[in-house]
C-alpha cells in the first residue's frame, strides 16, 4: 500500500517494506531503516535513519506537512481525496493565491468569450486579470470589489451547460 506525498507537485512514492524488527521504508526505490525517538514536544522530531541521527521540527497543517531539517524548510502536500463537487471545478474560477478583488467586469447571466477579462484581482501589490477559460455564461460572481479572499476560494462560477 504505497503512500504518496507531493513535493512541488512531484509525487514521492513511499512503501513500507517491514515493520519488525525495525521499520524499513522504501522511498522512490531506495530502502531506509528508520527508528523514531520520542520527544517531549511532538513537533520536534528525532529520527535514526540508516544509523545516522536527524533532528528537526515538523508541523502538520490541514493539507500540508512542513519540515525543518538541516537548515532547510520543505513543504509536502498530502494528497486529498477529491471533495464532492470537484467535478464542477471546470465551472469555477478559483483563487490560486490570497488577495483582494479590485474590480468585477461581468455579471451573473452574462455570456462571455474565451479570454475575456472577468475579474481584476490584486495580491500583494500586483494586479492580475482573471479571464474566461472558454466561451461560457456567468452563473454567479461570488465576490464584490474590495472583498478579500483566501487561496482556493471560488470567485466566480459558470452556468453548467446541458450536454
Amino acid at each position, binding site marked *: 500500500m504505497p*503512500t504518496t506525498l507531493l513535493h512541488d507537485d512531484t509525487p514521492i512514492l513511499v512503501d513500507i517494506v517491514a515493520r519488525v524488527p525495525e521499520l524499513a521504508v522504501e*522511498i522512490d526505490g531506495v530502502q*531506509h531503516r*528508520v527508528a523514531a525517538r520520542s520527544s517531549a514536544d511532538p513537533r520536534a522530531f528525532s529520527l535514526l535513519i540508516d544509523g545516522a541521527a536527524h533532528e528537526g*521540527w515538523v508541523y502538520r497543517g490541514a493539507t500540508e506537512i512542513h*519540515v525543518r531539517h538541516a*537548515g532547510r524548510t*520543505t513543504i509536502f502536500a498530502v494528497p486529498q481525496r477529491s471533495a464532492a463537487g470537484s467535478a464542477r471545478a471546470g465551472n469555477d474560477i478559483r483563487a490560486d493565491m490570497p*488577495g483582494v478583488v479590485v474590480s468585477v467586469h461581468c455579471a451573473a447571466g452574462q455570456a462571455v468569450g474565451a479570454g475575456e477579462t472577468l475579474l481584476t484581482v490584486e495580491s500583494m501589490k500586483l494586479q492580475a486579470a482573471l479571464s474566461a477559460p472558454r466561451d461560457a455564461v456567468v452563473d454567479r460572481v461570488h465576490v464584490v470589489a474590495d472583498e*478579500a479572499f483566501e487561496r482556493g476560494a471560488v470567485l466566480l462560477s459558470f452556468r453548467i451547460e446541458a450536454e
Partner: protein
Amino acid sequence: MIASVLVANRGEIACRILRTVRRLGMRGIAVYHFADRNAPHVAMADEALELTGSVPTAAYLDQAQIIQACLRAGVDSVHPGYGFLAENAAFAEAVAAAGLVFVGPDADTIRLMGDKIASRNFARAQNVPVAPSATDEGDPTAFLRQAAAIGFPLLIKASAGGGGKGMKIVRSADELQENIRVAASEALRYFGDGRVYAEKLVEAPRHIEVQVLGDGEGSVIHLHERECSIQRRHQKVIEEAPAPRLPPSVKNAICDAAVRLATAARYRNAGTIEFILGADGAFYFLEMNTRLQVEHPVTEEIVGLDLVEEQLRIADGKGLSRRQDEIRISGHSIEVRICAEQPERDFRPATGVCGVLRWPADARVEAGVAEGQEVTAAFDSMLAKIITTGSTRLEAADRMKHALDEFVLLGVPNNADYLARIVAHEAFREGRLDTNFLVEHSADLLPAQRAPEPAAILAALMADAGFRRVVDDVPALHAAIGRWRN
C-alpha cells in the same frame, strides 16, 4: 510631559514602540482589529482598544475611531509607526486638534515631503541633487516633449507615490505616451492622485539613505547612512548600516545633503532622506520619509541610540539628546525582513498558522507574530525582522547566516531560506550591491528545487496520522510477514 502613548499601528512596529514606551515608564495603549485579537502587540500593551472596520486594514486607517480611542484611554500622545497613518497630514492635524501630541512632524512637513514634485523642488532649492526630470503641468504635449528631451531610459513615477507602485520604465520614445497613460491611471487608483512625472533612470543604482533627527527648531543631526540596495520590485529585503565600500567623500556629501534638507525644513522627528547612487558616484534625492523606517534598527545598533526614545523626547519638546560630534558609529549591522511569501513560486503571498516558531538565540528579533497565530492575507506580508551586528560586516553576515539557519517558522511559507542564500552569496559578502542584485543573481538565489532529503520525507510521514496508523496498528502476525499489501 508625555506620560502615555497610543500606538496607532500593529505587527512588529507596534511591539517595537510599546517596548520603549514601557521601558521609559510610560503607559502604552494598543489598538487592534478583531483579526488581530491574539496578536502580540495587544498582549503587551497596558490597555488595548478594539477598532472596527469593513476590512481589517480599514480599522487601522480610521482616523476618527483612533482619536476616539485616544480620548477613551486618556492618552496624551499618538505614535503612528510606519505605514497606515504615519504620513497622513490630516491625521497629524486631527491628533493636534484633539489636544494630543503627534509623535512626528507637523502636517505641513508631511504634506511637503509626501508630494514627490514639491519635495524635489524643495530639495533642489537647498542644493540637494535631484535627477533630471519633467513634470506634467497640465499640457500633455509639452510634458511628452520635455520628458523625451531628458533622454532614455526614463522612469515615470506617481507624484503622490511610493514603494514602486505605479512606476514605469520607458526605454524608447514610442513607448512613452502609453506608459504615461498607464502610470497616471495606476497613480489615480493607488494614491487618488493621477499626477505623474518623468525622471532620468539611473541603471542599477545603489539605494543609500540617511537617518536624521530634528528638533523642529532648526537643529538637525544625522545618524549616518544605511544601504538598502537589496530590493525586490522596489521593496527592501535586506538593509544594513553603514553602507559598505562607500568612498568617504561620497558618504560625507550624502549625509551633508540630508542634513541641509532637513534643516531647511525645520524638521521635527526622526526622518530618513533617501538617495540613489550611480556607479559614477553621482547621487540624487529620491524622497524623504517623515517617520520611523522599517530598517531603523540597523542604525540603532551602530550608534547605540533608541530611535523611538529620541522620537518621544523630541515630541515632548526636550530637543535632541546628542550633538553631531557625540554621534559615533561602532560595528556593522544587517537586517532581514521575514515575509510570508514563497520565493520559489514567484514570491506569491502565503498564509497559514505559525505552527512552530523558534527565534534565533543570538540575534535581535523584531516580531509581530507569535506561535499559534494565524497569518492571513489581510495585512502586509512582513512578519518579523532579524537583526545581527558584528564588529565587521562579515561578522554580522556570518551571524545572520547562523541566525537564519537556526530560525524555524513552520506553517506559514516564508522567505527565510532565500534570505540565507542572499547573505551567504559571494557578491553580498564582498559588498558588491546594487538594486539589481536579486535579479542579477537570481540563478544562484532561486536554484531549481532539489529533491527533498529522505530525512525530511520520513519526518513528514511520521507526522502523518494515517502513516503512523499503518506503521503502528498492524497486527503482529502481519507485521512479521514483512511486505504486506491489501
